């Protein structure tokens, strides 16, 4: 549908920035407008790019978790974690007529992220072997990719003073 969500937000943001904010003298009201501007920029980017970010990230998460699963197989210290990995990788996520909705993707991404969080802890608490070090480096590399992947949602949207 035109206008798109991003186009609608661009119009609202223009009015707030150019026509409303210059006429607002109250510091608190001005601060709210500053925050609203950031949120609107974020929502505009999120409306167009978030689904793709989630799809790409979930693929990356699954690769990492599968690799971790095979690296840690048979090591009793990681039994609980590998069971968690198995569970999250085999979970069914809701579809609507063959398509994944954003909420379903968010839920899956969140579950994977939680398991990756546990993986980080488990690797730091484990004995310092070469295979643990290698896997740890792969986790850190993934985390950096994930952060760069979602950077457009925050980097040029939450700008200026936060309040």
């Amino acid at each position, binding site marked *: 549908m035109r206008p798109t969500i991003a186009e609608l937000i661009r119009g609202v943001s223009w009015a707030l920035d150019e026509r409303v904010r210059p006429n607002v003298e109250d510091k608190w009201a001005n*601060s709210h407008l500053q925050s*609203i501007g950031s949120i609107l920029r*974020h929502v505009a980017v999120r409306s167009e790019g978030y689904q793709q970010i989630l799809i790409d990230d979930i693929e990356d998460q699954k690769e990492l978790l599968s690799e971790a699963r095979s690296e840690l197989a048979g090591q009793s210290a990681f039994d609980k974690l590998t069971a968690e990995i198995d569970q999250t990788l085999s979970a069914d996520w809701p579809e609507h007529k063959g398509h994944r909705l954003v909420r379903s993707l968010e839920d899956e991404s969140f579950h994977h*992220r939680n398991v990756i*969080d546990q993986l980080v802890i488990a690797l730091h608490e484990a004995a310092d072997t070469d295979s643990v070090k290698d896997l740890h480096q792969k*986790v850190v590399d993934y985390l950096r990719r*994930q952060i760069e992947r979602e950077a457009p949602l925050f980097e040029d*949207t*939450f700008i200026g003073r936060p*309040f």
Partner: protein
Amino acid sequence: MNKVISLQEAEAYLRQRMDDQLNVHRVFQTFPGISRETWMVDGAYASGEPLNLVIRITPPNGGNCPFPLKAEYEVYKRLQDSPVPIAKVLWYDEGIEFADGRDHMVRVLVEGGTDVAGIADPGPDGDRAREHACKEHASKLGILHTLDWREYGFGDIYPAPEDPADAIRSELEQWRIYWHDNKTDAYPMITEAFYWLESLVPTENVHLCLTKGNNGLGEEIWKDDSIVAMSDWELAALADPSMDWAFSQGLLDLWDRDKLLEYYTEVSGIVIDPVVLAFAEVWTAFKAIICLEPSMVSFNNGEDLRPVNVTLGLGLPKNNERHLSKVIGLKDIIRARDIVKGWRDS
């Protein structure tokens, strides 16, 4: 939800607590006051004597701060008869009708302001003002950091390690627990960062003292070229003094970092180790994430819908996390500090 404190509400409350004949003429909230709501009350007692109070109230989101307002009140109370300049505190209360039952404390307004005269001026006059402001602040931090915190009862408010060498490790652990209990999302990079910081924790040349937390430019009350009150103690802790220098809001770069720290050593006897300070500067940038992200709880559940919760609880943590991800793993904390300082200054 945030409620505006009306003149009538403030007057009724203060009449009940202080003087049933007093009159309140004006009530207003100061800006920004994000971590605590700060309300100024102007009025007069029945005798005609002016009444100027400050009411600090915990916002509905809990205040982007790991420590409750009660702890801040206890700091004020314990410092009343100390050499540290501080406003007179009157009382603390919670769970009553005023301010919808939110935690609050009342103190006397100190005459002065947070602006420091002349520090933005160009040329030699500005240089002198900047040097003076830095030295004045260093002197006051020196008084604070050399205070016998045990004698003043701060061990009853804040956890303290047996061995001062563990001061930073102990603080890191307290914040790790706070983060674990309060974050609203999984942040594996932050988990990774905690381990990285833990591996670099300095244990040599570490001191344990009462620290203020956010301090420096814009935080203290100045009058006639002097700090007359150190204000807003929401992040006070028993920690290494470098933590205060790392959180001094630009003071280290206002005049001359090395000369300023030399002067601080002269007045306090405390030597700030460059490695400890570098760690503190990285840790301070990291702490902002820990403090601010949990403010999303009350936004997400509808208790505190101020949009600033999103800029502080989502935008700032995500951007800080991205910047910090570039230094995590470095073995050289000085280099990490320089990178962090680079993006914070940009």
